[in-house]
């Protein structure tokens, strides 16, 4: 079996500015002005420390991570807050670039890093389906073809022309998931998509994810609820402080390791 995703020595570094952060232009100019005067007049130092001194610290959100996901796998990514899960997903979704290393992808990737990104409260459900579909990468004709299916899945057919802001949060979540669920990508990234919505809807989502997976897609799934990972995934990786500490087909073992860290 060939791989869907191959991650090779992936690292991501963030630079953190400490001290009075040079967030504004004035502070930055002041910082360089002082730097310049320090150089030409050593006596200037006696005036005390530079309040605009900026210390740049490195932070490795991901450190030399390598793994391979076979095509059609259902990968669960486990790790505590700050372990690097979001950074990994952001790099996979091409929202940010890695500092070093690379990823080889076999197929189109679609990612849902947040439920309802780009949904506008003033627009109707119908208009939002088209907007969000386009945001997730669907073309106009593709959305038109799938529109009825999306509405049927979301179970809000009666309210589809009502402004989105009048929807209950459950309805909003259902519509958002419904659009994303009809993407048919080769690789699908889902980050905390089950966080909203009631139990029956969560079950429906998992069923739909199962169906997408059965159609041959590879799914990368991040969820804080362990049960959904246990039920759905057949492969898991565990991240800790930006490093990969486990890559296994034994999901139970990964969950045990993840829970054991607490």
């Amino acid at each position, binding site marked *: 079996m060939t791989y869907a995703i191959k991650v090779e020595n992936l690292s991501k570094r*963030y630079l953190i500015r400490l001290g009075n952060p040079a*967030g*504004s*232009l*004035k502070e*930055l100019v002041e910082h360089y002005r002082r730097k310049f005067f320090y150089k030409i007049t050593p006596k200037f130092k006696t005036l005390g420390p530079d309040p605009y001194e900026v210390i740049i610290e490195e932070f490795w959100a991901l450190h030399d991570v390598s793994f391979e996901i076979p095509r059609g796998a259902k990968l669960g990514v486990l790790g505590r807050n700050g372990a690097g899960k979001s950074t990994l997903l*952001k*790099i*996979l*979704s*091409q*929202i*940010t*670039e*890695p*500092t*070093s*290393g*690379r*990823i*080889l*992808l*076999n197929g189109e*990737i679609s*990612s849902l*890093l*947040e439920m309802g*990104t*780009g949904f*506008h409260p*003033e*627009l109707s459900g119908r*208009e939002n389906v*088209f*907007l969000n579909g*386009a*945001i*997730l*990468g*669907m*073309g*106009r004709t593709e*959305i038109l073809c799938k529109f009825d299916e999306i509405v049927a899945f979301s179970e809000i057919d009666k309210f589809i022309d009502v402004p989105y802001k009048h929807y209950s949060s459950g309805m909003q979540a259902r519509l958002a998931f419904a659009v994303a669920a009809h993407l048919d990508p080769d690789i699908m990234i889902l980050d905390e998509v089950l966080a909203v919505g009631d139990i029956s809807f969560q079950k429906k989502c998992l069923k739909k994810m199962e169906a997408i997976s059965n159609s041959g897609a590879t799914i990368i799934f991040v969820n804080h609820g362990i049960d959904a990972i246990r039920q759905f995934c057949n492969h898991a990786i565990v991240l800790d402080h930006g490093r990969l500490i486990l890559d296994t087909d034994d999901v139970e073992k990964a969950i045990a390791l993840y829970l054991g860290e607490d």
Partner: protein
Amino acid sequence: MQIIEAGASNQHYWRSLWAKRSLLYYLSRKDLSVRYKQTFVGVAWVMIRPFLIMVVFTMIFGAIAQLDSNGLPYGFVVFAGVLPWYLFASLFAETSGSLITNGALLRKVHCPRLIFPASNLLVALVDFTVSFCLLILMMVWYRIVPSWQIIFFPVFIMMCACTAIGLGLIAATFNAKFRDFQQLIPFLLQMGMYISPVGYLNQLVPKKWEVIYSLNPLAGIINGFRWTLVPESIPVFIPGVIYSAVFSILALLVGVKVFRAAEANFADTI
């Protein structure tokens, strides 16, 4: 097979922008339809703002200061200046803020970031077209018939849009990191309206200052814009127009370059 690594997003950039054209369409449509929801007069706002500026400027410069309008109705002179100025000002302001406005989207969705300024352009052109209809009505009212020079009209619209987008992209790039530009831009635009020939004809500028005055790229654009409509009454200051044309192309090229150079990090810096 696709490879993700540092610098890889620069390949096939324009092709992926084209592939996302339906996103461009829906983003622009959203901006157009959302803007005037829950307002009473709705789309009429597009016309009301330039119209009110015209009324005020006509009163100040035409009725009170009694500036020369080369025999044209003063209201028409002002409106023909307000239109390109509004196109520039709104497009520049929107573009410079586009990364911040779309910050939530930018952090969660992959797409060529130029799509946001591009949707600003579409929206600004729609607004322009709407208020341009008002100008046509005015020309009918005053029985002003354009001559063959009207064929240059789109050229000046393009110059205006290129200048606005180019400068806007540069401002947007810096704005992603330093929000100072967000404070500065409304102020600059307020001043710009007076140093550009919006409420008066640029022929009124004394000869010795003509060159310095024309350093403002909007001077040539607005002058040319009026000239295409009424060539008999408005002489065109050729060096100024050429300067504005060169400026607009350079602004666009530099703007796109600066924006693209910083683009990969926008999700981290915003």
